[in-house]
């Protein structure tokens, strides 16, 4: 065996060990804990009225968040990449801020804007719109913490996208809209999907900001993560882990789906795992007639 091969082996086991130690082992531990009581217990835990309505609310809010951030994130990314305007560098720097701010602080910031004593809060209250301590507050918090995902995963693909493809489509008589939908969107789709899926799973797990801005009333404004916290605090670790594992399962499935959808053609998953011959990422602008 040459030193080169040895080095390769060492590097590979270091990478595998690192991921296993940090992510895989804790995952296995929590999954094991939640299934020790049997699958019946697991189903019972996640289907109590309070647990199931917390899960549904979380999925709903995460879905709305994902749709909004997909739309406005795409727009923002296009603007940031394609247009020159004063203050662009500043806007670009602001985008990463949600990653840097502790989520508890995010909650405080939202409460500071929409609170009942603020100008905006009073105005909204007079209009009969409740944001803080209600469902819109939850979505607002999720939007804030997930904002960078779509923008940051779209930016590089947008920058790479060769202008001449769009120009070619345009000069061959396609309308701006057709060009956008048939040329721009398909080429940036892998990036967009990454952003969208990451937004969704990140929103599912958000706790710090939501616990401040949502009213946390069980079955009304209590999301899954806050429910889990409550169960831990009231000596029900079993119920807490079951709901956590359910969220983990959804996140895992979403991420596997993402992996599957965005792989480049040559190195996709084994045949038995595929369900179509033409994965989305294979559709290249050149194949559109």
């Amino acid at each position, binding site marked *: 065996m040459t030193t080169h091969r040895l080095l390769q082996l060492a590097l590979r086991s270091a990478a595998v060990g690192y991921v296993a130690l940090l992510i895989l082992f804790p995952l296995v531990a929590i999954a094991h804990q939640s299934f020790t009581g049997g699958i019946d217990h697991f189903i019972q835990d996640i289907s109590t009225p309070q647990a199931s*309505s917390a899960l549904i609310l979380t999925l709903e809010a995460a879905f709305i968040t994902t749709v909004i951030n997909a739309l406005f994130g795409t727009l923002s990314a296009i603007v940031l990449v394609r247009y020159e305007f004063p203050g662009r560098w500043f806007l670009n720097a602001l985008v990463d801020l949600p990653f840097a701010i502790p989520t508890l602080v995010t909650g405080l910031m939202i409460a500071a804007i929409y609170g009942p004593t603020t100008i905006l809060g009073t105005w909204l209250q007079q209009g009969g719109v409740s944001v803080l*301590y209600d469902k819109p507050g939850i979505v607002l918090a999720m939007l804030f913490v997930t904002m960078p995902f779509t923008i940051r995963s779209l930016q590089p693909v947008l920058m790479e996208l060769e202008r001449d493809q769009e120009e070619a489509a345009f000069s061959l008589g396609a309308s701006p809209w057709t060009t956008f939908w048939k040329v721009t969107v398909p080429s940036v789709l892998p990036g967009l999907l990454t952003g969208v899926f990451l937004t969704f799973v990140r929103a599912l797990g958000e706790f710090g900001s939501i616990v401040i801005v949502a*009213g946390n*009333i*069980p*079955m009304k404004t209590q999301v899954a993560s806050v429910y889990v*916290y409550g*169960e831990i605090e009231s*000596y029900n670790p079993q119920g807490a882990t079951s709901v956590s594992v359910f969220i983990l399962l959804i996140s895992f499935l979403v991420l596997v789906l993402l992996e599957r959808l965005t792989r480049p053609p040559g190195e996709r998953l084994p045949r038995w795992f595929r369900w179509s011959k033409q994965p989305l990422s294979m559709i290249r602008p050149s194949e559109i007639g």
Partner: protein
Amino acid sequence: MGASSLFALLLAWIIFSGSVLAGETRELTLAAYSVPKEAYERTIIPAFQRQWKQRTGQEVRIRSSYGASGAQTRAIIGGFDADVAVLSLEGDLDQIAKAGLISHDWRTGPHKGMVSASVVALGVRKGNPKGIKGWEDLARPGVEVLYPNPKTSGGAMWDVVAIYGAGLKLAEQQAGAGKKPSAESAEAFATSLLKRIQKNVKVMDKSGRESVTTFERGVGDVIVTYENELLPRIKSHRPYELIVPQETVWIENPASIIDKHVDRHHVRDVAEAFVAFLHSEEAQAAFTELGFRPIGQATAPTSAGTALPLPNRLFTIADLGGWETISTKLFGPHGAWTTTVEDLARGK
């Protein structure tokens, strides 16, 4: 820094830690819930250190940690080797006992192991604009009420118990003098009061402290919380007022040494003296300074050297059948609070 001075520093450190091991300084770890932090840090710990030094000539170093009662409990069960636990709920101390860390019956001490006391009270905005006097006023339409989530906050458990128990007392009152309502009708009334008040609750924070923060942010008309949480804030001129309802629950907070840890650290004598010291006049004065009530006030009202009058229809957890009974009755899967929340969410 040269190598020689580094060496000298190391030597000094070894000598210093050696003298600690020689028994001149004893070390005690205290795990407490966060509310009485000031009383401990400012008065009780320094006073105990003085007293111990006088009695034995030894210095005591007390490492204290403060946090939510439940979190401290879990930390201790999970391996935090505190010698003394001061918690907000008996149930939390029982959990530590159940984990095998407390091997003696902690309820055998003076005042049954309790060291501080308070009642559940109401905080309202300055001038009491909504005219809040008692529990029924909290159920009026248009009154916004705050208390934290009983799942995460021991304080909120006391709050809900206070409402439910007040409901039982009010049912007795309505039945008229001398007559006693049936247990079912009293319980039905208490549950309906709880439901009507819960309906007006808009925000349920994680802890009592957070609930007060939300109230100070301008949310809500009434906050239900410990009297000792409100008194110091009112004293420091926060714009709200204290209302003690005539029907409310007597709150007691326990303390105990943790046998497993004190034996391992060889500090049983210091730990026991510390818990005993919490019952002393000096420590009790520190608690009342912070808005607590003297521990004996409810059982022996004559000994009360406080300006705080006792509510007329005060009740205790024992009156309601003890914590085990009441927590199943209110917070169990089919408890009154649990079903109330579920019914309200379903629009019933």
